């Protein structure tokens, strides 16, 4: 279970999260919705340990550990995976090399044996087929020259191979057309399991038609200001975020 308690996070000198409290039990999918500037992306970065996102107060507990004490790679080895709104291009590093390096680094950190090259290739072939990805694309430098949809599929492929236990999807629907959205959502849904928690950060309700959340939370002004079932997302879609803005002020 992910347990965030009274989390305050500043970027530079500016406080963005101001006492955020949230529990996500194992096996559940929770959506975080909110207006622009509410601190949604900051939450994703703070949980994954991006430098410059400083937790000034509060705690984040995951799998019995204080996540805030760990560096980003250690958190990844504990199962934390942040799917980026805009995945980074890495010239000169083939996608295959990158994913294998990441997988084996995580396994080493957990005291597990590394995956051999042939075994890894077999895993990748299966996973890329399920996502309808061209295997040759994986020989190219990671995300360089990939379309928006290809980058998101690349993120899902990494999830499928790294098998994280805490998935944070940051605006995964941005830049995707309906077909790509469907394929990406199917990829995410295939990863739903009783051991895996998911935090789906999104501005629009659309993504939640494809990835059905157990709970929906409204993030405004750096705090969770409302929580409910899936119907809350539909209500937000109809009414907008306006009524939450004064509450945050």
């Amino acid at each position, binding site marked *: 279970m992910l347990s965030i308690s009274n989390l305050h996070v500043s970027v530079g000198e500016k406080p963005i999260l101001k006492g955020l409290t949230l529990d996500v039990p194992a096996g559940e999918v929770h959506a975080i919705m909110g207006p622009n500037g509410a601190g949604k992306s900051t939450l994703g970065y703070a949980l994954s340990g991006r430098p410059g996102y400083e937790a000034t107060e509060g705690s984040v507990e995951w799998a019995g550990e204080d996540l805030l004490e760990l*560096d980003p*790679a250690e958190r990844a080895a504990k199962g934390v*995976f942040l799917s980026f709104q805009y995945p980074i291009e890495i010239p000169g590093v083939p996608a295959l090399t*990158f994913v294998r*390096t*990441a997988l084996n680094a995580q396994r080493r950190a957990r005291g597990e044996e590394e995956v051999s090259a042939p075994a890894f290739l077999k895993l990748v072939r299966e996973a890329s087929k399920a996502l309808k990805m061209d295997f040759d694309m994986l020989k190219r430098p990671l995300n360089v020259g990939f379309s928006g949809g290809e980058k998101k599929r690349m993120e899902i492929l990494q999830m499928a191979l790294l098998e994280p236990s805490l998935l944070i999807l940051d605006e995964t629907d941005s830049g995707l057309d309906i077909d790509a959205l469907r394929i990406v959502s199917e990829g995410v849904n295939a990863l739903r399991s009783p051991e895996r928690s998911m935090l789906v950060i999104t501005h629009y309700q659309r993504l939640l038609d494809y990835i059905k959340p157990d709970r929906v939370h409204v993030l405004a002004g750096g705090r969770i200001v409302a929580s409910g079932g899936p119907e809350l997302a539909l209500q937000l879609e109809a009414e907008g975020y306006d009524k939450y803005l004064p509450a945050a002020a």
Partner: protein
Amino acid sequence: MSTAFALDLTDAKTFPSRRDEAWKYSDLKRYLRAAPEPSPTAEVGAPGPFYDLDGEAVVFANGRALGVTDFIASGEQTLRLRYVSDAVGTGHTASARVSARAGARLVLLETHEGSGSAYVAHNRLELDVAAGAEVTRVVLVAEPEDAISIAEAHVKVEAGGVYRQTIIATGARLQRIETRITHYAQGAHVQADGLYLLNGSRHADLTSVVRHVEHDGTTSQLIKGVARDTARGVFQGKIVVERGADGTDARMGHHALIASERAEIDAKPELIIYADDVQCAHGNTVGTLDESALFYMQQRGVPAEEARALLTQAFLIEVIDRIEHEGAREVTREWLTARL
């Protein structure tokens, strides 16, 4: 062509200082005030990084040739040119001459292999590329951090000749690798690449002067570098297009990463053009490792140090990918990877 080497280790009056414009960033006199004592004889132990690629060998140990100093290539040949230093506080000069006959294809695998400490090595090469000949020269330089080394190569390329070089420098207390290349006749092609990867307080200076004397010559230069800690990288690239060298196409690029606040990169690209009908361009950038890429890699579980090494390798590897000879390219790639 003048093949005079101005530097003479036995005569301190010939040691350049920062007052000499061409040595502004590599002040030899600051580190070497007097002529060093001559180095004693040395044994050559290990077979050198390119041993597995076979071919002929010209070997110097502390400046003394173990066999011939001159080599003439015809047909397809591979030559390993090894400058081995094993000395403490002394100095030595080695001089080799290599020529590729008309139509020859020579792979010249040059290594500067140093052990010991605080020595001064002066390694010289005169290289002639005859009409229609093709020479690929790959140079790996590994020396102790407190050594001083000056390598000078004078290269003359005749009509339609092809000369490609790739220099991999890892620095020393002062390390200057200078190449002077002349397009001596029309239609020659020159590729003058290199990279430097510097740790600690090491210094490396890649200096090149490419002269286009005749028309329709092409020059392509890609230099990349990384300076970490308090290291200092220097690139001085000069391309001169003489009057009448019309149809010249020359491109120069130098791109470097500063990986620490106390590291330094000095770059001085120069294009000097006296001909009218030429295409010349140069690009020069100095930056830092991409922080978002570093975070992205760490987020996927790659520890910070490994992520830095991977990004550094990805940045430098472009230079190695341009080595056309597969065997030389793979040895060089491994040699570099082991030093990341």
